[in-house]
């Protein structure tokens, strides 16, 4: 390495600038490093990023109306949905034309299904129209279409179509927050109490997840402390018992709770046997919130114990001894010296358990009954039963936002760098 006299930049012996040589030398190792993470990166892209982006898109996508009924959407542009007048002949003509084309492409039921989420009845309306529209071949289309079904003469029908004619919609999010946009006047209003379910479910999910996190902490902390303070030979064996649940199917673990907790189950029988409750006073501990909390606390416990254990393992025993030798009562020493040093483990364990709990659905579905289901159960319902993927996605996005928000809040208050996962 020598100094080139004129430019004052460092060069190697063969005169290439030092920075260039360094970059060249590092290129190979960078490439190797990239190739090593590539399979995982690829997997994450396919399995994680793409679905999330897709979900974000699905939750606001409403292009189906515009795609299947393009002429109708175009002609409805000049129609005022709140003027209490039916659309004119041109709109009906476009609708007939659109339905004919959709029928040919076998898509008229799709639009019916889509609009049925907004207002029930649309599925049958479009199925019927699809059957009869072929016979309509000359004007007046308005009368002809109305003849197939009286609902075509209802302003409400057209208000629904008009409101859903833009490519993007906030309708799913409104629904996920128990709001609705009235078709008759376009105003956003809360749903009546009896129809509101999502906000209640969100709150229940957050509340029960918090409770579960707290319970895993209360149960897991002493266990971790014990594990961290027995000789390694023993703790290695005991840690297997903590991990044992991972080797058993989640379904088996959940259903075994049913056997234990149900009204004719082991625990109720035992309580009657020792006379704490009477035969008619059998406790309802399953198929309600209690069941969800008990089963999930059990299932998520290892996720609290492991980070706590790994943090406690690194806290030297001499801290407690030092504190005691300095005159602190053992309890004071524990509370003021030991406990604060377990913070990173508590943080990691809590956030792990909480985030897992908030998105859990198998266990609540099996043991939650009606009062112990989580918001994820609604997502599952919309994805696999009602097939309203838009609403399912919007709930999913809200859940994701809540988790990210809590994560950021955690970072602000405690700091992610203070978290120790293992």
């Amino acid at each position, binding site marked *: 390495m020598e100094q080139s006299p004129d430019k004052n930049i460092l060069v190697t012996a063969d005169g290439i600038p030092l920075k260039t040589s360094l970059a060249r030398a590092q290129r190979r190792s960078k490439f190797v490093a990239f190739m090593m993470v590539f399979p995982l990166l690829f997997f994450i892209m396919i399995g994680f990023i793409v679905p999330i982006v897709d979900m974000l898109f699905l939750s606001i996508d409403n292009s189906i109306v515009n795609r299947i009924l393009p002429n109708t959407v175009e002609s409805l542009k000049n129609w005022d949905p709140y003027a209490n007048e039916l659309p004119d002949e041109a709109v009906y003509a476009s609708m007939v034309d659109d339905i004919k084309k959709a029928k040919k492409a076998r898509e008229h039921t799709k639009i019916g299904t889509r609009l049925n989420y907004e207002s029930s009845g649309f599925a049958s309306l479009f199925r019927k129209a699809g059957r009869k529209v072929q016979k309509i071949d000359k004007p007046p289309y308005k009368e002809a279409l109305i003849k197939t079904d009286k609902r075509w003469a209802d302003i409400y029908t057209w208000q629904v179509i008009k409101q859903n004619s833009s490519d993007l919609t906030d309708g799913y999010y409104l629904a996920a927050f128990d709001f609705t946009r009235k078709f008759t006047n376009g105003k956003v209003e809360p749903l009546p109490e009896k129809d509101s379910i999502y906000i209640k479910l969100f709150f229940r999910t957050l509340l029960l997840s918090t409770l579960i996190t707290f319970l895993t902490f209360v149960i897991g902390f002493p266990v971790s402390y014990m594990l961290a303070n027995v000789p390694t030979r023993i703790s290695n064996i005991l840690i297997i018992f903590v991990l044992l649940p991972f080797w058993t199917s989640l379904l088996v673990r959940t259903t075994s709770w049913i056997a234990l907790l149900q009204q004719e189950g082991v625990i109720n029988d035992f309580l009657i046997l020792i006379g704490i409750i009477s035969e008619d006073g059998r406790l309802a501990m399953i198929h309600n919130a209690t069941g969800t909390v008990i089963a999930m606390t059990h299932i998520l416990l290892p996720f609290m114990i492991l980070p706590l254990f790994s943090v406690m393992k690194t806290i*030297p025993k*001499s*801290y407690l*001894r*030092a*504190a*005691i*030798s*300095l*005159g*602190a*009562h*053992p309890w*004071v*020493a524990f509370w*003021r*010296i030991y406990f*604060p*040093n377990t*913070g990173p483990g508590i943080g990691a364990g809590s956030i792990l358990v909480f985030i897992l709990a908030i998105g859990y659905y198998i266990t609540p579905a099996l043991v939650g009954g009606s009062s112990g289901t989580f918001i994820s159960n609604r997502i599952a319902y919309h994805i696999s039963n009602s097939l309203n993927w838009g609403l399912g996605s919007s709930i999913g996005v809200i859940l994701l936002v809540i988790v990210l928000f809590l994560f950021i809040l955690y970072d602000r208050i405690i700091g992610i760098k203070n978290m120790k996962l293992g």
Partner: protein
Amino acid sequence: MGNTNNSEAYVSFQNVQKTYDGESFVIKNLNLDAERGEFITMLGPSGSGKTTCLLMLAGFETATYGEIILDGTSINNVPPHKRNIGMVFQNYALFPHLTVNENLAFPLQVRKVEKYEIEKKVRNALEMVQLGEYGSRRPMQLSGGQQQRVAVARALVFEPKIVLMDEPLGALDKQLREQMQYEIKELHEKLEVTVVYVTHDQSEALTMSNRIAVFDDGIIQQLAPPNVLYESPENAFVAQFIGENNTLSGKVIAINKEICTVEVGENETLRALAVNIEGIGSDTMISLRPERVVVNPENGSYPNIVSAEVIELIYLGDHIRSRMKVCGHDDFIVKIPNSAHHAQLKPGNTVKVGWLAEDARALDAPA
């Protein structure tokens, strides 16, 4: 609280025995008295039970048998947090989530000292260890030597009866270690606090202590001031453990008052101080410091003069270290001072070496 002891010993182990597993003694029989203000060091190889002794004194381990007296009171049944003993741990055990100030304030807070008093004492303690400006830092933000000083300050800030230090300098590099030895010693002299210090480093023990208890095999092999320990070891273990030492093993053939005659190797007889021998005919080990050996002495000037073959020479600046073969032992070390007219040796030379009978100590022969 227990019986009062009228002897002047401030800390006293009386017939203390300790076993962890019920099968073997870690401490066989410990009797040790330390005076108020004394700096007493437990020195011994790793595993010899030094830490166990400190832990019993601090109250974290209980003596299986025997009694530990502090300031005239038996403390066997006093819980550790009420013993008022300061302790410096090898890894310092500074509380990482507290600042230096808070670390120092901790022992005062748990003693319910007034707030302004705490501030004053903490400030004084920090200045005492020359860390006045570092009070608001976290321990992690300090160097090893600074952490060490904080640990010492914390063990002193509440004015404990005694301070225990378990290999406190073990984690420091050589230079820092020597500086800290000096500083701790100075603090001890200034504060007149009683210190029980544990180390396996003999030079550290020699530098710092008033008295040293050499530990091995669960008992104290010798308890003496540094110079006595070095110059008059009472048994083979102490002689070997403290300082550099030549050993010549042989058989006692005659004893004349303090001087005995020992047959070493082939018909060579040496005269040595009879320190720890059983009698005529017993095996013995003569211990001789390398610096007490003279090369090429005048004939008849020393009672012990033998011929030696130079095997190896190492130039060390202030002196030359020479390994020689003497009386069949080829690990005999002689230190030749680098003076103007010192003997010029070469490997392979045969020379005469001599020493006084008083410098050679006939000790027990280790098994």
